[in-house]
């Protein structure tokens, strides 16, 4: 929506996930997590009302591309493929794709993934990273790489399969995996990075610059005041102070 439209109706609509700890999830019936806390702070700065719709990941990006929502207020990894369709707000954190294993696994380093079964989410940036990493592995090990990449609709099933031994490792961002290991330290173990550092940011439909401007202004203010870094510390266990202002 353009600036005038937003003025006229007095609100923007955003879509948020409900099962992506620690960014956004539901606890005791309330939407909580890093992104939800950020939203609470942003509401004070942005000057228009923000209407939030909570839904599964599979509905989020289609909702933005079709114009149902102004922005995906969700942990969207910034990739080249996505830049073709979306514009991103100022990033909210940094991410690197890691793998995690079951405790006691024989996988001690990235090279041990050769001949193993690894899971990741369909259409995710982590899957893209995993596929690139697999190419490298193949080069390095004379054609032999990961035995099979299993694509999941969402991560809880992948973690469950890891626990049951159907997959040997799961690829996800270090932030998500840290949260996993913190909750079930007796079952899971975080491994090492298999991708390049990238950013996580909120996404709008390509060309929707008016919304982007409003949101960016608020986000940069939160950075300046340090409130964003406090929230990162609280939810993600680290603060990322060297992020660029724009990742588009």
């Amino acid at each position, binding site marked *: 929506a353009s600036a005038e439209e937003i003025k006229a109706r007095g609100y923007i609509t955003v*879509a948020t996930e*409900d*099962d*992506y*700890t620690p960014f956004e*999830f*539901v*606890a*005791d*019936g309330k939407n909580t997590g890093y992104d939800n806390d950020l939203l609470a702070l942003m509401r004070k700065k942005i000057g228009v009302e923000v209407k939030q*719709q*909570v*839904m*599964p990941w*599979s*509905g989020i990006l*289609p*909702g933005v591309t*079709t*114009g*149902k929502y102004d922005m995906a207020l969700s942990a969207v990894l910034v990739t080249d493929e996505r830049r073709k369709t979306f514009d991103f707000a100022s990033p909210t954190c940094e991410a690197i794709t890691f793998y995690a294993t079951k405790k006691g696994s024989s996988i001690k380093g990235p090279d041990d993934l050769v001949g193993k079964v690894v899971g990741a989410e369909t259409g995710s940036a982590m899957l893209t990273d995993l596929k690139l990493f697999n190419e490298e592995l193949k080069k390095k090990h004379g054609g032999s790489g990961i035995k099979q990449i299993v694509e999941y609709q*969402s*991560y*809880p*099933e992948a*973690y*469950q399969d890891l626990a049951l031994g159907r997959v040997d490792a799961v690829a996800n961002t270090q932030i998500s995996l840290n949260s*996993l290991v913190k*909750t*079930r330290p007796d079952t899971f173990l975080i491994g090492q990075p298999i991708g390049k550092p990238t950013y996580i940011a909120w996404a709008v439909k390509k060309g929707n610059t008016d919304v982007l401007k409003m949101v960016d202004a608020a986000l940069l203010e939160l950075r300046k005041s340090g409130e964003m870094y406090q929230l990162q510390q609280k939810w993600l266990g680290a603060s990322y102070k060297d992020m660029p202002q724009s990742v588009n």
Partner: protein
Amino acid sequence: MNAFDYWSIVQGALATVVLSVASIALGIPLGLGLALIRWARVPFFHRIVVAYVSLIRSCPAVTLTLLIFFALPQFGISLDPTPAAILALTLSTAAFNCEIWRAALINFPRDQYDAALAFAMPRRLRFRRIVMPQIWRAALPGLVSEMTLQIKSTPAVAVIGIVEITRAALRVGARTYEPLPPFVFALVLYGLIVFVLIRAQRVIERRQPVEARA
């Protein structure tokens, strides 16, 4: 799983029931209307109904929901998740109900209908006094089993942000990383709802005097 998790799944069950009841209440008469259009071979419209039923029958509910939620705005109709979900569920159940009603209409004994004609009943009266009281009884088992299927297909509307039983259970699993317990609890709730429905059908059938059946 803590007490609140159980409670949240129960709330999901409430949403499931509300959505199902709404779509069933709309879908049964709508299905009857569609069936009558086909039965009476209303020109042009009966072809549309045939295509509609065939398409909906083969379209997975998730896909239908996504299309309604995300495609309609392009034609200027933007629906909130709840009405969109009810619309999707109604469209789908109406197609199935149409087939059930139609089967009941087709199997309606020809000579009873002839008797209604011979006894000078005009169309509305024929339908209201002779056909309807019998076909609804013939259709009831089919309608109820479609209702159970309908209730079981409500998880499809979770994709547009409706939190029904299955979604509520998934949320719990996503937080605790232990999906099995909430699923089992969800199964129990579904079982209860469907069981109540099946019992209701039995009660309704039993209240019909047996001898009143053809």
